[in-house]
């Protein structure tokens, strides 16, 4: 369970991993500031087991990347396990970790690979996040597509035209599946996280609690 904090703890931090997602993917509350280094967007988190971390995107970090900063005091033998704990808590696929502490500093896995594909599990979270950011907690299919494309990096494979729905690309079809399929144990509707609305969804209070657990909303 993560808590999305209103301010930094001020603890000494150090960059320890890089994720191939924009910072807006992780938090509905983004702090914007300029410091001695550069302009920056940031989000601050803590977890029940006393892990404090920050996500930052400095102006000249590549687009669709977010850097994880952990406590500078964290012992070296705990850094990688803490990165894994944070990735799990954020509900982030491990494939989105393109570098972590102790790996070569001179190279990094690609932020976007041609063959990477939006999976339905991650698509369910994205749909809920788009609705949660809306003032009335609802989102139409068009708003979901627009919102997802603004904070999820779409690959060539995602943009391939669907064979069964030629008017749509594969990523759009996956989002439609999330919003259309009311059955199945993983459905956001069966789990009570959202209600179906015409051509869209409304996120429920359980859905908001779900996103609060992963720190997306304060």
């Amino acid at each position: 369970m993560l808590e999305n904090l209103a301010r930094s703890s001020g603890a000494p931090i150090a960059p320890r991993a890089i994720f191939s997602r924009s910072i807006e993917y992780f938090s509905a509350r983004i702090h914007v500031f300029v410091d001695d280094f550069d302009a920056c967007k940031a989000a601050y988190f803590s977890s029940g087991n006393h892990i404090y971390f920050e996500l930052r995107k400095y102006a000249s970090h590549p687009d669709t990347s977010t850097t994880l900063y952990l406590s500078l005091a964290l012992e070296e033998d705990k850094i990688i396990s803490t990165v894994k704990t944070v990735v799990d808590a954020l509900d982030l696929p491990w494939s989105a970790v393109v570098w972590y502490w102790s790996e070569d500093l001179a190279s990094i896995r690609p932020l976007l690979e041609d063959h990477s594909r939006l999976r339905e599990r991650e698509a369910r979270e994205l749909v809920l996040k788009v609705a949660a950011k809306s003032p009335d907690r609802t989102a139409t299919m068009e708003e979901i597509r627009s919102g997802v494309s603004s904070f999820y990096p779409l690959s060539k494979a995602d943009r391939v035209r669907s064979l069964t729905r030629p008017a749509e690309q594969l990523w759009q079809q996956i989002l439609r599946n999330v919003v259309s399929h009311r059955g199945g144990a993983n459905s956001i509707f069966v789990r009570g996280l959202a209600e179906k609305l015409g051509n869209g969804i409304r996120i429920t209070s359980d859905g908001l609690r779900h996103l609060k657990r992963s720190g997306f909303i304060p």
Partner: protein
Amino acid sequence: MLNYGVFHRNEATHQTREVAELQVKTQEIWGRTPKDGFAPTVQAYRPLGVKQGRRIEFSTDVKPGAESPYEAWWYLGGANVEERIKDQELFACIPVEISLNTQV
């Protein structure tokens, strides 16, 4: 050739043309306390950080206290990171060799 680098700092609010001139003249990079930070820190981008047209590039013999492929941080209190005070403000400082200044 110095041991660590090449790093760069892009033109920004605190990395102005005047600051770049001073950095070239002194062959030093100074750093304030980052937003919400605990101590003055010199910060710079590593080669995989985006290079803007207007920037300085430098190398140093001071090992960064922390790094990612995008950035390097030298904390005051870290080995060979020096202290400077100007107008009652405390700065971290590292000696550098500046190889490029396009902030002219």
